[in-house]
């Protein structure tokens, strides 16, 4: 049997969940034996080169590019997992949700104390290369179907390890209290 293929991505997140993936320490050597990585910041593969078994998504969607990446993952991964608070609920980035995006942009580029008087042309960055901001930050399952949710900020390395091994081996996942308690 060929190795299961894993892809990962960070959307509107802080890379903390990815750090947590790396935090499995020396077990990463076991992991590489067990699986193959495709599109992921870990191996810097930019585009999918084959269909993947498992996709891990860190972060929610705050702009159009996040949405495209997420949809691309859904298309190319058999199982898609929301990894961590931001992917599941929007997390810290979603703190902007009660404020209209127009107000956010104007505060950041026109009216905020650090920009007021320094943006003479009064332009809010609008180059075509810049992704378009969404009206609010969306958790991933509000954009595409998500199969599993791994909670935590970040989910502990052990939780990620347990989840991946369970998925790969087909065994039931171990969820001891320690790995899902957050207080």
């Amino acid at each position, binding site marked *: 049997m060929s190795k299961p293929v894993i892809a990962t991505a960070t959307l509107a997140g802080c890379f903390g969940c990815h750090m947590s993936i790396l935090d499995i320490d020396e077990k990463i050597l076991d992991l590489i034996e067990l699986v193959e990585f495709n599109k992921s910041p870990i191996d810097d593969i930019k585009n999918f080169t084959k269909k993947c078994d498992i996709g891990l998504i860190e972060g929610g969607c705050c702009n*159009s590019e996040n*949405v*495209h990446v997420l949809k691309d993952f859904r298309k190319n991964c058999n199982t898609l997992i929301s990894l961590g608070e931001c992917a599941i609920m929007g997390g810290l980035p979603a703190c902007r949700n009660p404020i*209209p*995006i*127009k107000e956010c*942009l*104007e505060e950041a580029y026109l009216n905020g104390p650090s920009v007021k008087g320094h943006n003479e042309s009064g332009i*809010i*960055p*609008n180059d*075509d290369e810049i992704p*378009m*901001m*969404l*009206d*609010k930050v*969306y958790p991933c*399952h*509000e*954009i*595409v*179907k998500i199969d599993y949710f791994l909670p935590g900020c970040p989910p502990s390395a052990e939780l990620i390890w347990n989840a991946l091994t369970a998925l790969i081996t087909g065994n039931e996942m171990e969820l001891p209290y320690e790995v899902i308690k957050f207080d």
Partner: protein
Amino acid sequence: MENNTVHSAIRKYNQDKTRLMDILIEIQDNENHISDDAVRIISEKLGLSIVDVEQTISFYHFLSKESLGKYTIYLNNSVISNMKGRQIVAETFENEAGCKFGEVTEDGIIGLFDTACIGMSDQEPAALINGSVFIHLTSFRVKKIVRDMRAGKDVKKMHTSYLGDGQNKSEYLNSVVRNNIMRMGPVLSDDYNPGTIIMKNLAQLTPEQVIEEIKTSNIRGRGGAGFPTGLKWEFCRKAKGDKKYVLCNADEGEPGTFKDRVILTERPKLLFEGMVIAGYSIGATEGILYLRYEYKYLKHYLENILEEAREKNLLGKDIGGIKGFNFDIRIQLGAGAYICGEESALIESAEGKRGEPRDRPPFPVEKGYNDCPTVVNNVETLCSVVKIMLNGGEWYSSLGTRESTGTKILSISGDCRYPGIYEVEWGLSINEMLDMVGATDIQAVQVGGPSGSLIGPEEFDRILCYSDLATGGSLMIFNNKRYLLKDVVLNFTEFFIEESCGSCVPCRSMTPLLKQKLEKILNGNGVANDLEDLPKWGELMKINRCGLGHTAANPILTSLKNFRHLYEEKLERGKEYETGFNLEQAVSESCEATKRVPDF
């Protein structure tokens, strides 16, 4: 000048922090808002923190730290109001006033606001303007009202139509509200001379004998929950406490209910007599009528009746010549919160706090108002009690069905020829009810208000009683032209979201999630799975603390159960999963701000 109002309100209520609600309402009514200064002064004088005062203000719909305009208009946005033409009325208000709902005009004269059902479902669209009720609004009428406001006219002089019927036209009310009493029964009948029981019968009976009579009648609470009244009184009588209280729940916030308003207008003496009998039975010395803010126009009238009762020795000391039986009643105004109809929230509110339900036990009969044993009874229950004492418990239990004895006063509104108040014996079927009110071509009936259930024609042979269709009395009728899911179910769900106190997570968060799902389905993005999710998610509502939380998902859950085809015909076929996310729509606001054209 504003500080004068604040100081005089504080003096009027003896710097008593349990009267915070009264103080805040007085300031709000005089100054159109409660300023930072007022909050500071209140907190100093009452020995409360600033936050204590502010959290009470922020809890209630009719209290505000922002100015709400010299004329504050609260237009009802209930289902029935919408059905009866609210939209054109609202648009006319906006056009004529020059501001949107939720705003105050630049000159500070007119403020336009939405509000939940104001208890006028038989005469909608209706609005409260500076506490005065305006009914049967049309765009023609609205134009005149706005012109009058611009001219600085007193709201009481803005009424152009003739005054309402019965006591509504009395000098203390001067109101255009209609009673619409369509059917009287033994409770509403006007052949009784109030005060007779107190003057003639009470002295011969021990409190235990009164409770025994009430127990014989088998009457159950008329607010909706249906707890046996005699038992409640007995518990309270036996509870230890130096001081006990009788609270009358006149918060009547369940959309579509208005029977208490009519009782308070036409039979207030009966109600007060019922409160005295309750006081005698449990050994209370004080009664409080908790009157919803929407009915503030009745306050002066009711206070006058209380004053008359004191003069006749029906209230006060040694009532009815019974030595040592002292009992008096005061009126406590609410300030706009549906949840205050829940008895423990009502007690909290009457103590001057946020109306958040308490954990139970202890129940109010042991630890209620000011931690003293308290009975909380509905207006109609207390009125029925007088007739039970007059004619006997046996007589009362011969009415209605075996386990739902007596009569029920129904508030009937919506698509029928004769909306209004009907007193009927328990056991009436929905079909009979529809015949009674002249309703034909009916698609659905909402029994018991938004917290009750939406039923269709195949269930119209079910009967009104505690073991089948229990109801606090709200019956809303919808004909076949109504768009049930959007106009009724969505409106009710939004009502619960607005009225949640926010204390329990499922009530605060799940209700909006259910609403999102309903909207997704209405937008044509629903899939079969969504219909499975709704009842599963709705299960979680059971862990909420109070009745509001338990029933907030009912509009969706009962309509899904009884009108599943309406949901199913909206679903996208052949799709397993659909979020309904629309990228173009999601980026439109930021693109407008940055002057970009979405290009994917």
